[in-house]
């Protein structure tokens, strides 16, 4: 099924002069909490435009901390981070909303607005950027149908199962077709069939030019795709561009 958010032209107007085509770049980044030791140190990597990346590592390795910097919720304690070619330390309050509208985030704890129904939650990014009513109606209905929540559009998030809430969160993150999609354990609460369907959605978005980062500790899922991995281990990041041969049996 074709989703019109995937075929629609990306809205114009967001242009940042970039010296290179990296959407995200970390240089010698260190993160610490309070006065404690650095939980991540000497982090160096670059994510090119329209790349699809997994962010792996055991839980507690710092995946969410890294994502928080990418969606401008935290600042690194050390080093240089650029998003869309902009140094995050130099981004002003005024510039932040526009940059964030180009970043879709699937939060690990979903962060759905509990008093808004599923439709309104997913419509939120479009409303915030002032989209027309009929466009919102069309795109949200389509996307919710696609993620299998057509019958739950008027439901409030607390009445949904964890897996359903997760799909709402994903729909909200992708509805405005962001340039950068960050997903924190987006398949943690769904069965494998739905997980594959959601990853397919991310791949479709990626094909349209969205840079995707998916944090997961589900190594078997990662193994089924030929995508580079940012692997967090021992407090730093290893960027695995060449894929180790999949351990999945050929006849699977």
């Amino acid at each position, binding site marked *: 099924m074709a989703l019109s958010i995937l075929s629609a032209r990306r809205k114009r107007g967001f242009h940042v002069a970039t010296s290179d085509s990296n959407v995200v770049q970390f240089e010698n980044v260190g993160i610490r909490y309070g006065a404690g030791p650095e939980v991540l140190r000497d982090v160096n990597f670059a994510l090119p435009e329209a790349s699809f990346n997994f962010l792996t590592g055991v839980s507690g390795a710092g995946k969410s901390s890294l994502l928080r910097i990418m*969606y401008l*919720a935290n600042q690194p304690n050390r080093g240089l981070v650029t998003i869309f070619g902009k140094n995050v330390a130099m981004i002003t*309050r005024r510039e*932040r*909303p*526009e*940059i*964030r*509208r*180009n*970043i879709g*985030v699937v939060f690990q704890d979903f*962060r759905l*607005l509990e*008093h*808004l129904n599923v439709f*309104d939650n997913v419509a*939120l*990014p479009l*409303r*915030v*950027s002032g989209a027309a009513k009929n466009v919102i109606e069309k795109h949200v209905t389509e996307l919710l149908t696609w993620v299998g929540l057509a019958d739950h559009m008027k439901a409030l998030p607390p009445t949904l199962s964890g897996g359903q809430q997760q799909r709402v969160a994903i729909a*909200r993150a992708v509805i405005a077709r962001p340039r950068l999609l960050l997903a924190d354990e987006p398949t943690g609460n769904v069965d494998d069939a739905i997980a594959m369907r959601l990853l397919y959605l991310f791949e479709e978005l990626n094909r349209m030019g969205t840079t995707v980062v998916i944090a997961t500790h589900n190594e078997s899922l990662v193994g089924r795709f030929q995508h580079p991995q940012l692997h967090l281990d021992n407090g730093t990041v290893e960027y695995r561009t060449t894929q180790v041969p999949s351990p999945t049996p050929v006849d699977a």
Partner: protein
Amino acid sequence: MMGPRSDLPLSDNPAVRILPWIVALMVYLATLTLAGGLLVGTMANQWSQGLSGTLTVQVAPLKNESLAELDARVIQATRAILKTPGVKSAAAIPLRDIAVMLEPWLGGEANVKGLPLPRLIDVALNPDIDLQALAERLRKATPGAEIDNHQYWRDHLITFLRSLEIVAAIMVLLIAITTATIVVFATRSGLAVHREVIEVLHLIGAPDAYIAGQFQRHAQRLGFIGGAAGGVLGLATLLGLSYLAGNLDGVTLPALHLWHWPILAALPIAAAYIAKWTARRIVLRALNRMA
């Protein structure tokens, strides 16, 4: 209270739910205070324009003048007054009545007989009277006749009325400030209660103005609901009072002009805008500090 769709559950906040009630009370107080101020202002204007409707002309006795001569001059003066355009009526007050008025000071009528008492002419006027012309005409017609338009007493009365008017204006201003202060607290409490939702909206890319818009629309709505209730009650009170005043025969109380009513009816709208702009300012300032 169901309202238009909002991204923030702003009504789920006790501090906000009490807001319409307080605004209603404030607008009620403001309506009565403002009506009082407008009435007092109308009264002061009437007095300062000499439009109180009456004046007294005094004809002082000349030296060695007989009673008959004085009577003749009083009649002459009364005629001159009656010929002036804008005069409704003029009547000389009989000597007997003057004696009665003076009795507390001078004793019974018998004692008054021989005294050179001034005579008084009671004059009722139309509002469009030209007092200068009247004085001019009177001076030509009858030497010794003087208009007493109660200048001294009137000046003091007007000063007093103007002071009341200023006090009323200050009270309306204070009520407005109080209303704004309540909105400040309700909005701050809303910001604290909905902190997490605001954070999510920020992460989704909502600009501060979008979030402020939600708060200001809500505050404006509550301000208008409360204000309308208070305003209707205030106007009803005023109508009741003016009905009771109309029952008082013979006493001319100043009444509200027709154009005063729309001013009073605009108070709920003013309350709604005070609520709106206060909420907006507070939210934008708080969000700016959140960094």
